[in-house]
């Protein structure tokens, strides 16, 4: 017996290299097959999702306009310290660059980009272009300052240098209502009349929080009821919960407009019942946004809660009652804590979806109810300010990822316990 064992192990050692090679070979073909299986989806995601999104997000710090329009000027300014006006060579470069940029049709983008730094830059550029000094003028510097005295101010040159960096924090700061002061280089608060984004973020999170809370309040009892019902009945009701998923979001939102409008079903019913005398404004304001979003997002709260509740055996509450706890205390101290994982998942899912909402607020909300996504769409479609659009999008993404991290922290200790 032991002899044969020794023999076997001896054999095994001899065979090891070939065995290992065989194993590697078989594993290689297995790996190749699995790679082949995921390749179509992987390529699809890469080409149609990851790459475009990545490119778009990079626009939030990308800063090509000044660089491409004024290459020689930027090069000449590279060594400029900013203590006094740039030298004659820089002015010369600017004149040549402006003439070239005009020919190449880059003036629009340039003027827009520079106007982000100093609004007066737009008129300065067009005024300068109209009176561009001829190439035989001796001092381009004097000529430019003669066209507009702004060229003799350090601020304008500092702003030009600042706007010429290949990467800029400008858009991200602007999305947080801050800017870099071109005179001092410090981060300062934006002008009050331009500070709208922090308010928009606050509004977005507030709407998200209210909708999440409403979904929780409405969804928890439903999920509990579903979890306690016998299988057949709960399946039927689950279909009712999932029904909204089978209708287009736009159709559902439009339906809410019909229901909630001044002459709509809800207002008429309330007036018929004598509860109100005049129609209540329920749509194209915050109320409408919250009602419609709560309805749309309710299943995302119910489903995680239900799946957790279904796995909580009924005898925990019974045990708590047998130990002397009032049924409500038993529910609160024994049942509810066990639903925390589902509650966190549902709340997080609802909140993340809510803060990214676009269609519903756009259709049932007023001007003061538009959320971050609306402004992303606005900058993408209307003003073609992709830097601003992707800066807002990036901040929204960062907020979502942070929330996800918090969720992981919250649920992890529970998981290791059970």
């Amino acid at each position, binding site marked *: 017996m032991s002899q044969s064992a020794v023999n076997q192990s001896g054999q095994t050692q001899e065979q090891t290299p070939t065995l290992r090679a065989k194993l590697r070979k078989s594993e290689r073909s297995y790996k190749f097959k699995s790679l082949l299986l995921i390749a179509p989806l992987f390529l699809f995601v890469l080409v149609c999702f990851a790459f475009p999104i990545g490119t778009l997000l990079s626009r939030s710090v990308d800063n090509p306009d000044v660089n491409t329009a004024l290459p020689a000027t930027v090069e000449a300014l590279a060594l400029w310290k900013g203590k006094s006006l740039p030298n004659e060579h820089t002015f010369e470069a600017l004149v040549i660059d402006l003439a070239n940029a005009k020919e190449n049709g880059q003036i629009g983008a340039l003027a827009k980009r520079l106007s982000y730094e100093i609004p007066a830059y737009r008129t300065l550029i067009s005024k300068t272009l109209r009176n561009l000094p001829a190439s035989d003028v001796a001092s381009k510097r004097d000529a430019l300052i003669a066209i507009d005295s702004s060229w003799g101010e350090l601020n304008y040159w500092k702003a030009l240098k600042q706007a010429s960096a290949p990467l800029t924090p400008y858009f991200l700061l602007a999305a947080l209502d801050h800017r870099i002061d071109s005179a001092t280089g410090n981060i300062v608060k934006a002008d009050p009349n331009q500070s709208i984004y922090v308010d928009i973020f606050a509004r977005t999170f507030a709407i998200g929080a209210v909708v999440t809370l409403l979904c929780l309040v409405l969804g928890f009892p439903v999920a509990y009821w579903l979890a306690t019902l016998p299988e057949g009945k709960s399946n039927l009701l689950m279909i009712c919960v999932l029904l909204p998923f089978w209708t287009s979001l736009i159709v559902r939102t439009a339906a809410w407009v019909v229901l909630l409008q001044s002459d709509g079903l809800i207002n008429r019913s309330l007036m018929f019942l004598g509860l109100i005398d005049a129609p209540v404004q329920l749509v194209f304001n915050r109320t409408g946004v919250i009602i419609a979003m709560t309805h749309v997002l309710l299943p995302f709260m119910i489903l995680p809660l239900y799946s957790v509740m279904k796995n909580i*055996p009924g*005898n*925990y509450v*019974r*045990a*708590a*009652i*047998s*130990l*002397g*706890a*009032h*049924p409500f*205390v*038993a529910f609160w*101290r*024994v049942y509810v*804590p*066990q639903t*925390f994982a589902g509650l966190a998942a549902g709340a997080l899912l609802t909140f993340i979806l809510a803060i990214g909402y676009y269609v519903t607020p756009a259709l049932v909300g007023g001007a003061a109810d538009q959320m971050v996504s609306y402004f992303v769409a606005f900058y993408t479609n209307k003003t073609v300010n992709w830097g601003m659009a992707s800066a807002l999008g990036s901040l929204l993404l960062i907020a979502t990822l942070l929330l996800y991290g918090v969720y992981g922290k919250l649920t992890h200790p*529970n998981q290791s*316990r*059970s």
Partner: protein
Amino acid sequence: MKHLVSFKNIQKTYDGIRPVVKDLNLDIKEGEFVTLLGPSGSGKTTSLMMLAGFETPTHGEIYLNDKPLHNLAPHKRNIGMVFQNYALFPHMTIEQNLAFPLSVRKMNSVDKKQKVSRALDMVKLTDFAKRYPAQLSGGQQQRVALARALVFDPKLVLMDEPLGALDKQLREHMQLEIKHLHQQLGLTVVYVTHDQSEALTMSDRVAVFNDGVIQQIDTPTAIYEAPNKSFVAQFIGENNTLLGTFMYCDEHYAVARLDDGSLIRAVPVAECQPGDQVALCIRPERVVVGPAGSTPLTARIQEYIYLGDHVRMITEIAGQPNFMVKLPASHMNNSWTVGSSISLSWSPEHIRALDVTKH
């Protein structure tokens, strides 16, 4: 002795058609350990749940300390309960689990701490106070469940198959532990199980349930040695049943005739008229085996099973197969092989004439 619990004419049905408990009358004395034993669906757990307050009787009344229970909410009954899968709260430590019944009773923290540590000590789990239930073995969880049901000093403790999830060795160990706790603390215990050896080991009295009716309630010895129903004889322990025709009663015994004409004397239990079928029940270990021809009753060995300390033989007697004989290995005779004949005998007080059930 005073009755702590009385079930009076309890009926229970869930669907209004099929009764789960038919007519339950059961008195439990203070300090008694009563086991409700029966197959699943026999109504034993339903009866326990009605006592705990999680089910309401369709008819009848349950009394606790001579007070009717129907208006007393389950959380006010002050009955300790150990559940089948322990139902330890997974989000609380062992300590918090034990403190739960005390904190809902608004006990002050000093007393609470003292009681919890005493309860932990009682089940020898002091070192595990800060752990969560999932970090404990099945046996340890079981002990926590027991401690939690006892920590608020209930007079009455209900146990619903508390050892069902444990392996055999641990189960036997816990049976003794529960029995000792019962004796030390002077508890009244109502215990539900479908495991007959558990019932026999632990109980003062065993109530055998079937079809929503108590078939027999008595001490473990009486249940085993003197079953009053065929169901009880067959459900508890191993049992042989011979079908015979009742002839007449002599001074002490009923006389029944087997198909081959042999007459058997047995303790008369079932009421019957001459000519009725009776089930003659005897435990395998009460059968005495002798060489063929030594007694009038001859059996043929169908199967022979060697089990080390004892031997089982499955025999055919009077045309009825599967009659089991159990005898110590030392009483074995080498000539008893499969197919050979032997003679069987027993003393008539060990065989009982019971009702014929269709099993």
